[in-house]
C-alpha cells in the first residue's frame, strides 16, 4: 500500500493555495489530511470540507507568537503533518501591509519551526523566476544554478524574495528535512496576482519600446501540478517550473485581447504610477522591471527528469 501524506498549506487564501488545497483534499488515494493556513477567518469555500480530512487555521506567519501557537496547537499536533507547502510568502508586490523584511524573517522562523518539528519531513517553498538576474548577458535559457538578483540597487520586494529563496537553499543540507524550492515562471490564471497576470489584466497594457522579451509563462494548474509532484516524489532541490508556450511578450499581450502600446521606459513608469493610482492596473513597474526588457525562458529539464513534471496547459485568456 502506498504512503499517504499529511500536508500543511500556508497561503491557503491565495488563488494557488485555494486550488491546491482543493486538489489535495479531493485526492483521497494519496493525501490523508490537509491543514490549510490563511490570514483570514475560514473562507466560505472551505466550509463544506469534511473535518476528518481537512482543517483550517487563521495564522499570520509574520507574527512569531501566532506561528508558535500554530505549532503548539492541538489540531496541529493531531494532524501529524509530514509535508509543508509554503505559499504565503509575498505573492505580489502590491497590497501587503507588512514590510518585506518582516516577511523574510517570518519565513526564516517558520522554516526553523518546521525543522524543529520531528514529524515534518519535507518543506516546499514557492519562489519565482523574478529571483533570477536578467541582464543583456543572461543566457536565453535559465537553469536553476543561474545567477540570482543580488544587485544592491534592486527593490525591497525582489530582494526579500531572493533572501527567502536563499534561506531555504541554505537549509537544504540539514540532514533531516527535505527542502524543495520551486521557481515558477510568471503565472497566468484566474485570480492569480503574479506580475505578468497583473500586467496583462491592466486596462491598457504598456510595454517598453524597443524590447520584446521571450517568455515562458506557466498556467496556475501546472504550478499546482508541480507542487503536488514535489509532495509525492522523493525529491529535494531547486526546480524551475514553466509552461509549454514560448513566445515574445507582445504575443501574450495580443492573446490577452487588451489594448497595448509601447513607450519609452521613463514615460511608461509614470503612466504605470497613474494607472495604479486610478485603479487601472495592479502591476507595479517600480518593482524590478527587467522582465519587460530581457528574455527569461526557464529551463525545466531538471523538473522533467526528477519531478516528472510535464506542463499541460497552454495559455488562454477570456
Amino acid at each position, binding site marked *: 500500500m502506498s504512503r499517504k501524506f499529511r500536508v500543511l498549506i500556508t497561503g491557503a487564501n491565495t488563488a494557488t493555495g485555494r486550488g491546491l488545497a482543493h486538489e489535495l483534499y479531493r485526492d483521497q488515494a494519496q493525501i490523508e489530511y490537509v491543514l490549510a493556513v490563511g490570514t483570514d477567518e475560514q473562507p466560505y469555500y472551505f466550509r463544506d470540507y469534511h473535518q476528518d480530512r481537512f482543517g483550517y487555521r487563521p495564522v499570520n506567519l509574520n507574527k512569531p507568537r501566532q506561528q508558535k501557537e500554530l505549532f503548539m496547537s492541538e489540531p496541529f499536533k493531531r494532524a501529524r503533518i509530514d509535508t509543508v507547502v509554503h505559499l504565503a510568502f509575498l505573492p505580489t508586490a502590491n497590497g501587503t501591509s507588512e514590510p518585506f523584511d518582516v516577511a523574510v524573517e517570518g519565513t526564516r522562523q517558520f522554516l526553523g519551526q518546521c525543522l524543529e518539528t520531528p514529524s515534518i519531513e519535507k518543506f516546499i517553498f514557492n519562489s519565482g523566476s523574478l529571483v533570477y538576474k536578467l541582464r*543583456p*548577458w543572461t*543566457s*536565453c*535559457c535559465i537553469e536553476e544554478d543561474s545567477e540570482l538578483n543580488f544587485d544592491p540597487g534592486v527593490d525591497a520586494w525582489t530582494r526579500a524574495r531572493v533572501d527567502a529563496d536563499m534561506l531555504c537553499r541554505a537549509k537544504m543540507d540539514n540532514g533531516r528535512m527535505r527542502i524543495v524550492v520551486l521557481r515558477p515562471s510568471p503565472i497566468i490564471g484566474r485570480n492569480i496576482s503574479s506580475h505578468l497576470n497583473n500586467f496583462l489584466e491592466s486596462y491598457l497594457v504598456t510595454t517598453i519600446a*524597443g524590447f*520584446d522579451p521571450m517568455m515562458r509563462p506557466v498556467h496556475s494548474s501546472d504550478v499546482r501540478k508541480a507542487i503536488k509532484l514535489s509532495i509525492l516524489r522523493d525529491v529535494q532541490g531547486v526546480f524551475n517550473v514553466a509552461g509549454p508556450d*514560448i513566445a515574445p511578450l507582445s504575443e501574450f499581450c495580443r492573446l490577452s485581447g487588451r489594448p497595448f502600446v509601447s513607450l519609452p521606459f521613463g514615460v511608461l513608469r509614470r503612466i504605470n504610477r497613474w494607472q495604479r493610482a486610478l485603479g487601472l492596473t495592479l502591476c507595479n513597474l517600480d518593482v524590478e522591471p527587467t522582465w519587460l526588457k530581457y*528574455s527569461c525562458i526557464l529551463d525545466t529539464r531538471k523538473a522533467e527528469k526528477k519531478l516528472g513534471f510535464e506542463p499541460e496547459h497552454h495559455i488562454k485568456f477570456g
Partner: protein
Amino acid sequence: MNSKARARIRKLIRALDGPRGLERLESMGMDDEGFGYDRFGFERESLYAGYLFARQLYRRWFRVDSRGHENVPRSGRAILAGNHSGLLPFDGAMLAVDLLEKLEPPRPLRSIVDHFAFALPFVGQMMYRTGQVPGTPRNFRDLLEREQLVLVFPEGTKGIVKPFSERYQLRPFNVGFVEIALEAEAPIVPFAVIGAEEQAPVLFSIPLLGKRFGMPTFPITPTFPWLGVAGLVPYPVKYRIAYGEPLLLHREYPKESARDPDVVRAISEKVRSRVQGMIDLGLELRKSKGLVGALA
C-alpha cells in the same frame, strides 16, 4: 510580428522572387516553439524582411563574391569562424545573406553577438528576431544542440575596431568557441572576408568615451563622428568571402580535450592561422592593392 505583417512579407517575397523563391526560403529549417518563434526569439519572417533589405547591400553596395560553399555543411551542427572588421557588423550580415542565397536548402546563420548590443532598444530586438543571440556559453551550446549553423568572430569586438594600419592582421583568437566545438563535436569551418577591413577605416579609438555610451570603445574614422550617424555608412568596398575546409575536431580529439587548456589554445591558433592564410591568399588574388583594390 502579427499575422498580417507576416503575410505581407511573404507576399512581397512572392512578388519579387516568385513562388519558387518563397518556397526555397520556406524550406529553411527552424525550431518553431508554436508561435512562429524559436526559444531564442528567432522569427522566420523577420529574417525574410532583413534578408530583403540586406541582399540589396549584398548585390549592389558590397557586390559580394564568394566561394567554397561546398565546405559549409548543409545540415547538422557547425561553427563558422573567421575575421571580423569594419566597425559595424556588415560582414556578419553579408555572410548570412550569402548562405541564404547560395546554399540549397538555405540555412539561417545564428551569430554569437557581444551582449552590449542586446541592451540597445530596437537593435537588440532586431538581432533576436533575425537569429542572433548574446554571446554566452549556454546560448552557444544550446544552438549547437539544436543542430544550428553558428557564426563566431573569435577576435571579438577587438577585431572591428582595430586601426586601419593593422587591417587584415588578426587579433588573438578567443578560445571559448574551441572548447564548445570539442564538447559538442561540431566541425569548425574557417572563413575569410576580404574587403570589410576597408569599409570604415578606424584611425584610433577612445575606450573611455565608449564606456560612457555603453559600448566597448569609441572609434574615430575619417567620417565618424564628424558626419554624425551618416559617418557610419560603410564605403562601397567589394566583399570577397571564402569558406575553407572544415576542421573535424572530433576525429582528432576526444571530448575531454575541451578541458585541456593547451589543446584548446593550440586548436584556436590552428584556426587562426588557417583564417590568416585564407586572408593572405585573398589579398594576393585581389588585383589592385590598397583602397582602390578594395573598391574594385
